[in-house]
């Protein structure tokens, strides 16, 4: 009995152990990553890098639960960032900018939702096409230029306290943990992700659930884009090229299953932290940053490999 409980918990928290192992590894083998007297890099990871990656990973995890991958993510962030820049330059009002960002994010999410549910295109093809269109629109809007003029209140709103990004991400994560595990809508999402036909037969409207979930994914991205723009201090159409890869790698290494219907906020957060620690630690080890993309790709393939092995064992 005890043995099975331990085994179960080990399986469930294997990713957390991986995170801790990576952390210890980098702490021992580099001087600057972390030591009991040196917390600056740790704070940098938790307060400056993780909040953005966690939100990307959360949005991706929700789409993977529904058996779809959101490949338009990077372009979404770029376009929302441009819209935020435009609104701020015109009005200098942070509130309007945030509203516009959430609206734009939701709009792109709805676009994805319509293509996937109404038209019936495979999610990765639909979102990949969206990626090109949305990135193109962002480029048309700004035409290779950048917006720096954010007005006097927007950036201080986010940068006044160094904990703002962390708190916002944490709140969003708690909210989605609640939605996914405690509400009927959350159960519907898992039901549709596990087996769409069975869900439909038991009275769920899978198209509506998918549409709503894709819209929510867009909203998360909108919020992420506002924070990212505030942190970066510039709106430009070329940001976010590698976000999709990062988000997929984070979700998968966090333990979200590619066959849908499994995973959650816990997986998204742990996965994002693993990826941030890995990329940050590599820089401290002295690996050139050009290698990051290679490592992220390998992480994806290794996670797929790992899941495959686990499934085979279970069978």
């Amino acid at each position, binding site marked *: 009995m005890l043995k099975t409980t331990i085994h179960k918990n080990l399986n469930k928290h294997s990713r957390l152990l991986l995170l801790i192992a990576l952390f210890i590894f980098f702490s021992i083998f580099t001087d600057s990553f972390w030591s009991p007297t040196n917390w600056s890099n740790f704070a940098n990871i938790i307060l400056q890098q993780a909040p953005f990656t966690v939100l990307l990973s959360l949005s991706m995890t929700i789409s993977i639960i529904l058996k779809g*991958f959101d*490949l338009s993510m990077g372009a979404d962030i770029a376009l929302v960032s441009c819209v935020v820049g435009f609104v701020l330059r015109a009005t200098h009002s942070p509130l309007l900018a945030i509203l516009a960002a959430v609206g734009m994010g939701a709009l792109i999410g709805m676009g994805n939702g319509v*293509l996937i549910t109404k*038209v*019936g*295109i*495979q999610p*990765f*093809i*639909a979102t*990949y*096409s*969206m990626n*090109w*269109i949305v*990135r*193109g*629109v962002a*480029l*048309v809007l700004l*035409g*290779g230029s950048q917006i720096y003029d954010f007005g006097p209140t927007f950036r201080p709103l986010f940068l006044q306290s160094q904990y703002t990004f962390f708190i916002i991400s944490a709140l969003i994560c708690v909210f989605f943990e609640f939605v996914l595990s405690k509400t009927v809508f959350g159960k519907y999402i898992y039901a549709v992700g596990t087996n769409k036909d069975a869900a439909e037969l038991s009275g769920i409207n899978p198209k509506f659930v998918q549409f709503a979930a894709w819209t929510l994914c867009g909203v998360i991205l909108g919020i992420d884009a506002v924070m990212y723009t505030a942190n970066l201090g510039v709106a430009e159409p070329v940001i976010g090229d*590698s976000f999709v*890869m990062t988000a*997929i790698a984070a979700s998968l290494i966090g333990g979200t299953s*590619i066959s849908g219907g499994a995973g959650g906020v816990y997986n998204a957060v742990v996965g994002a932290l693993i990826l941030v620690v890995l990329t940050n630690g590599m820089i401290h080890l002295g690996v*050139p940053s*050009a*290698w*990051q*993309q*290679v*490592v*992220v*790709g*390998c992480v*994806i*393939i290794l996670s*797929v*490999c790992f899941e*495959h092995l686990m499934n085979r064992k279970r069978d």
Partner: protein
Amino acid sequence: MNDIFKKIPGLMWGSLLMILFFVIFAPNYTNQRNIINILQNSAIIIIVSMGMGITILSGQIDMSIGGVMTASAVISAMYIAHIQEPTVTDILSTFLIGIGVGGVFGFLNGLLIAKYKFNYWLVTFAMMSIAYGIAQVVTQGKVISGFSKSFRNVTTFSLGNIPMVVYIAVLVSLFMFFLTYKTKFGMHIYAVGASEKCAAQSGIRVDKVRFVIYLLSGLLSGFGGVLLVSKTNFASANVASGQEFTAMANVIIGGISFDGGKGGLLGAFAGSIILTAILNGLQLMGLSNYWQQVFTGIFILMIIIIDVVSQRVKKTKNTRRVYKNA
């Protein structure tokens, strides 16, 4: 004759209509120079679309094409850039290096997808990331340019006013047509695409077929990458980004459907030229690069939507017929 018209997919009619629009309204569109320009610009994407064509015919998709082209372009460019006066062997080995790079990626794709049954598009998508990453590591953000005349001549030398790259594309296409239309392997691609289960039960080694398909697609992408360097005279870490999207569009315009097992590479060949002609027309009409990207995206999405919806309509029609007969 009637048969041939029926065989042309509906999407192509729409695209041809658009080209007619350019013929009437775009300045200098039917100029001999512009037509050669269109052929020259479509040559490399034709070669790559052949690889995309067989993967989509087999019911899957190879998202790594753009990345593999970039990696192959960059690595082969690094090799040839140092040689001032390359001999024939130098040029040949450059091409072999590029094709080899493509082959390695194709091999890995094939191994993971065919042998270990991993999710095909996730594997190829991750491979795209790895390929771009390697290109970045190799170039370190620099642009490699200025190659010797003899290396560039492989694609740009004109034979009867038409540059070599067009002949190369036609040769590769002929080979691929032969492979898919006339050989047993080609039949097997169609069988696997139409229904993997049926193919397996009738004795086709599905994993072998899939492996060869990804290997071929990788080799073709690698070849396309080297040709790209030779034609454009430069290589950088994003020289071929998005080519998989264009190739996907070419293939779908040509009447190969995402369901697999339907259509043929001849369509992919025609689709490549048609899409290049349309983009060329837009350029002549004075559309900026950024608008071109939006337009291409929307155009391709429309094509995909039409394809998906028409397939669904066909399916419901067929089911109704079955019910009526029963």
